[in-house]
């Protein structure tokens, strides 16, 4: 099979604030803005960022739980964003989701066996025997005893419930599992068990994961590649090792520096990044991170920085660290980043950098 398993192109989601029949323009929350990435079979892509950065909205868009404002989500080359209800139903088999809260995401009135076989019964009729065999098989896959199938969620521990959530996602043999903060609500010792389970399943079944998390320790442990989001946009997308060894975007740098490290001998030199995440209703002009950024220059306040491919296969959106002035075409192709996104700044459409820069610098020079 050619091409990536899952491909996301220029995905955008705006939520209107109220309905304005008489108003000409309704204010919108720009939850996700022009997000593109791809996921290969058997790969783990992590999406990190803080609350309100749009990472959960991306998960919901991938599952088509909400419809995108613009952009495409391709699985094996088919755009699911444009599918009608019936066609979408069958594509859902390919992609399943594991949720954060193992308490509210399981129906308290169904037994464990019913919960994990329900997705399959959406598609085909199962005999009692088949259902029993399927439930036992799925429970074994997630490291639980088949006898547990008659238990109710309230009779299980948090870790066991999260295993059920994973078994339910596995029931349809998906090629991609989207895990939205799937280990965040668990204690560390249980978290380790679930992370191990996910790693094992990936090795055995070749499942791709889109793993959404705010915990950089977890992300570093399981990710092949990492996308860092800030206020609806990807600011850096890099192979995991490169990203943690040398973050390029100042926000990635701040995020990694802020994460507490379980080592009392480590001396924290740098002061934590100042300020807070701005509102997505009224995001700052230019680069959304500029009000908190120690490197910000004039241009950051005006232009949205495009994602620029770097030599080590990462893409970074930063005027200072990754200036977009000269992008070798080869590099751009080597990055594997969707050409649509690159073409925008290559052709200059939407980014009249040169002119705006001149406008800003003139009055200053005149003042001197």
């Amino acid at each position, binding site marked *: 099979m050619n091409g990536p398993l899952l491909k996301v192109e220029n995905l955008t989601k705006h939520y209107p604030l109220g309905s304005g029949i008489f108003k000409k323009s309704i204010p919108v929350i720009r939850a996700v803005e022009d997000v593109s990435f791809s996921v290969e079979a058997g790969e783990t892509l992590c999406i990190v960022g803080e609350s309100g950065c749009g990472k959960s909205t991306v998960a919901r868009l991938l599952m088509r739980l909400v419809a995108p404002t613009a952009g495409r989500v391709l699985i094996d080359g088919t755009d699911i964003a444009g599918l009608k209800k019936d066609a979408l139903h069958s594509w859902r088999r390919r992609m399943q989701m594991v949720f954060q809260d193992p308490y509210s995401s399981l129906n308290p009135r169904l037994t464990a066996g019913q919960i994990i076989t329900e997705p399959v019964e959406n598609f085909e009729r199962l005999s009692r025997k088949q259902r029993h065999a399927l439930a036992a098989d799925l429970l074994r896959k997630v490291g639980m005893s088949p006898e547990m199938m008659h238990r109710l969620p309230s009779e299980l521990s948090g870790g066991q419930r999260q295993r059920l959530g994973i078994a339910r996602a596995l029931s349809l043999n998906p090629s991609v599992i989207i895990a939205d903060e799937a280990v965040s609500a668990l204690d560390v010792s249980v978290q*380790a068990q679930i992370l191990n389970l996910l*790693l094992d399943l990936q090795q055995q079944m070749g499942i791709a994961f889109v793993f959404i998390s705010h915990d950089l320790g977890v992300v570093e442990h399981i990710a092949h590649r990492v996308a860092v989001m800030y206020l609806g946009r990807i600011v850096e997308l890099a192979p995991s090792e490169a990203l943690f060894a040398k973050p390029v975007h100042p926000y990635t740098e701040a995020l990694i520096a802020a994460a507490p490290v379980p080592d009392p*001998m480590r001396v924290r030199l740098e002061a934590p990044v100042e300020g807070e995440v701005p509102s997505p209703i009224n995001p700052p002009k230019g680069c959304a991170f500029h009000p908190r950024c120690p490197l910000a220059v004039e241009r950051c306040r005006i232009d949205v920085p495009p994602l620029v491919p770097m030599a080590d296969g990462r893409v970074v959106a930063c005027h200072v660290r990754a200036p977009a002035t000269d992008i070798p075409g080869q590099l751009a192709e080597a990055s594997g980043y969707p050409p649509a996104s690159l073409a925008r700044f290559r052709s200059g459409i939407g980014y009249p950098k040169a002119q705006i820069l001149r406008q800003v610098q003139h009055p200053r020079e005149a003042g001197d």
Partner: protein
Amino acid sequence: MLMRESIEEDVLLDIRDLETHFYGEESVTRALGGISFQVKKGETLGVVGESGCGKSVTALSILRLLPKLSARTVGGEIRFHGRDILELSDREMRKIRGDQIAMIFQEPMTSLNPVYTVGHQIAEAVQIHTKASRSVAMEKAEEMLRLVRIADPERRVNNYPHELSGGMRQRAMIAIALACSPELLIADEPTTALDVTIQAQILRLIVDLKERTGTAVMFITHDLGVVAETCQRVIVMYAGRIVEQANVIDLFARPAHPYTQGLMRSVPDRRRGRQRRLPEIPGIVPNLREPIVGCSFAPRCPFAIDICRDKTPILRDVGSSHAAACWRAEEVMGV
């Protein structure tokens, strides 16, 4: 004798054999099974453990904020400045609470009153414990907001909690807690609900303020990273008991209890390599409604031998200022 007294003088809070039970319809949960520890003046003591280990119950027991109908402290002493606060009247306890011992909680939104401005809520704390007039208390409120580094405090005193971000609300909570210059601040997971960059700011703030005011801090958290960055001494709790107690450097360098060791190993760490299986702690925590024979960690412990299943280990010294409740602590440390 002299020696002994000078050591005792440093002790702010001295807890001995504290036992707290929760009462259900047909069962009793032994949430705290007799714990003893001290908080010294001006130190930061970390209390770590996983859900249900009793760390929050310890805090609520100290402040006597347990739900009256379902929970009771059934044994032990909590000596604050040498006086057992379990014997104080409710009235006397109210004088201590918020004035000498203050607390901040995990959820800043639910612990602030939504119908009053933050300035009002800080001033209220000041007025309850001092004879300050309204205007003096409001000035103090503004000063406190400046102390916790909220930008534009003149304007922010008149804001309601919903007008503040999560990080600012937690700053406001800290301002209320510190308004009366308490000698002990109990912080129960104060940064768990916050984003990492905001968490880093709040941790820095708590450490700075502690150094400036000399307040002792009891820092309750599940996050070993937070402990490593903020605490001087650490207590590790498991199933309602203290299993290890040490200064932070010794604890991380040579954990003496298998549970502490397991906890540290199960945290993903780049120094041990990516994409590998993490060492797990097998099994689940014991049910505290049933009596536990022997060491409560024995069923999950790779070191367990016969004695562990029969006799409960007591907390004993395994080094200078390092104690563990494990029959095989020396072997655990050697590994």
